[in-house]
């Protein structure tokens, strides 16, 4: 492998990684605060991608602007999801929780299949084929925009979590539900917001990704699995861990794609997950020194 090919793989791995981080951060936020894993996370991304595609195809809205339309919808969907399914699910055993979100994942996939058919759809604009040279390597415009937006959003979320009272409340609840409740924090309200933001971040990712990757009703599953990998590799509930995990997964995948076949490369993130779970099950950058499940 020549140095240029390696650099190219590294760059596309990093941009993919930034997008993955944007997808996984919502999952880790919800897990950190509520201790619930949402198996339908990727399906909400799928809906956001369709939202971006439809806004472009029918209203002629640029995907970057469509973000402003899709985010409120996803935020509302997240709050609705919490009120309708997750709140009651938190009272039943873990296995029933899994069944609920797995059921939702199937439901959304097949509703989308009935509504949008199984066609692969992609936003194609003038800038879709544009690209910029960074030294010897090439960066495609839609990827650059998505990765840039991911970086901005992650930074914003990080500042919110670290610097505001709202972030303090979120962190308090994820450290100890009882302690937070005793300090006068409204736990139910915090859950609702965590779920709203956790799903709402997908509203940023969706429209931008619809110009990077074909959207079809089953695309979500792939990203749910990848988000799991990232979140566990990085450390469940950990913010920095998501970024590290996402970049690692993105780069590993893209370098493996150069070295081997596509199918083997697709297995690389899972191999990475297994490795991390066995050697460091709390993740690479765990919250508070690593709490095991």
């Amino acid at each position: 492998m020549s140095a240029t090919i390696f650099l190219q793989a590294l760059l596309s791995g990093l941009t993919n990684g930034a997008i993955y981080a944007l997808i996984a951060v919502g999952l880790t936020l919800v897990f950190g605060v509520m201790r619930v894993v949402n198996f339908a996370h990727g399906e909400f991304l799928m809906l956001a991608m369709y939202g971006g595609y439809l806004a472009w195809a029918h209203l002629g809205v640029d995907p970057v602007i469509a973000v402003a339309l899709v985010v409120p919808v996803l935020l509302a969907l997240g709050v609705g999801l919490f009120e309708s399914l997750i709140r009651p699910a938190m009272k039943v055993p873990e296995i029933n929780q899994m069944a609920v979100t797995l059921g939702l994942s199937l439901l959304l996939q097949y509703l989308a299949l009935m509504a949008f058919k199984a066609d692969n759809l992609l936003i194609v604009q003038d800038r879709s084929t544009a690209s910029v040279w960074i030294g010897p390597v090439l960066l495609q415009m839609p990827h650059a925009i998505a990765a840039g937006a991911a970086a901005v959003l992650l930074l914003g979320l990080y500042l919110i979590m670290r610097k505001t009272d709202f972030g303090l409340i979120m962190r308090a609840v994820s450290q100890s539900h009882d302690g937070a409740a005793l300090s006068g924090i409204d736990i139910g309200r915090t859950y609702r917001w965590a779920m709203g933001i956790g799903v709402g971040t997908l509203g940023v990712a969706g429209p931008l990704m619809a110009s990077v990757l074909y959207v079809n009703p089953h695309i979500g599953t792939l990203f749910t699995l990848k988000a799991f990998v990232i979140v566990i590799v990085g450390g469940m509930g950990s913010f920095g861990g998501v970024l590290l995990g996402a970049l690692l997964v993105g780069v590993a995948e893209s370098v493996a794609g150069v070295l081997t076949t596509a199918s083997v490369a697709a297995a690389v993130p899972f191999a990475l997950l297994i490795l991390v779970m066995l050697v460091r099950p709390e993740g690479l950058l765990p919250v508070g020194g690593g709490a095991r499940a």
Partner: protein
Amino acid sequence: MKRFLPALVPAALAAALFGICLGDPYFMDIFILTALMGTIAVAWNLMAGFTGLISLGHSLFFGIGAYVVAYGHVGFGLGPLLTWPLAAALAAAVALVIGLLCFRYGLRGYFFAIATLAFSEVAFLLVSATPWLGRSDGMMMPTEDDAARYLQFMEKWPYGLIVLAFLTATLLVGQHFASSRAGSYWRAIRDNEGAAEALGVPVMRYKLLAFVVSAVLTAVGGAFFASTFSFVDPRSTLGVDLSIQLLVFSIIGGLGLLWGPLLGAALLIPLGEVLRTAMSGFTGVNIVAYSVLLMVMALMLPHGLGGLLKTRLPRPRLGARTAFRQEDAAR
């Protein structure tokens, strides 16, 4: 004999259904599929419902069973007499290794579920890329001259008979463990692993036992699948969908009961068939109905239909009644 009643009654019911389906190849097909999936779900539930270990990677063991039989046949001309035990042994070894790795760090709940899912995904993707396993196109097993030795029959009913035997054996094995010391240990681990360990339950050994027993039974199911359809491919034998189905059947039928998952499969698979044929114009209507049912059941009826049924049944022995209530309260 009496302690095997919870295994023998469902097995007898299944045998009666087999008799009813004998005349019609279409019904026999549905019976075979239902009995196979129900039996594997019972095996899965030995881990989930009895030991509290939720695996989302059981398709790995089903796939091991199916691919050992298929590759043994295509590559070496081996018959089921040799490949079925080989499949079971390989599944046991793989379960042992994965179990040792996962339990060493006490992976539980969501983490164990996702770790097992990762193992099965790796297997799915690697098999899809392996030329001598037919990649994602799968492998067709050729028809042999001495067909019966390869379990190749023209009729459907011999397969029905085999799956009936498999179902009965699985229920008996399950009931044997559930009503012995191992079963008590499993439930103790499920309800409070720390307390069980403190009381001297060899947690590691009994979790591994549950994993290996469950994996072996699942692999036999996969072996049966390969022998029946003479065809294996990654999507139908190693895919995540298969693992999720096992969870669905168990939730609907009832996790706390040996025969619960069987009940779930017996309701959902024929129902899915009916919906699929009745609504053939709309792809996916059956899955929409199925997933809504799953969500509602998981929230409203955590013990499943089997649990509901069981509380309605007359319970002659006082001891058993309090035992069930306690189990109820613990979950």
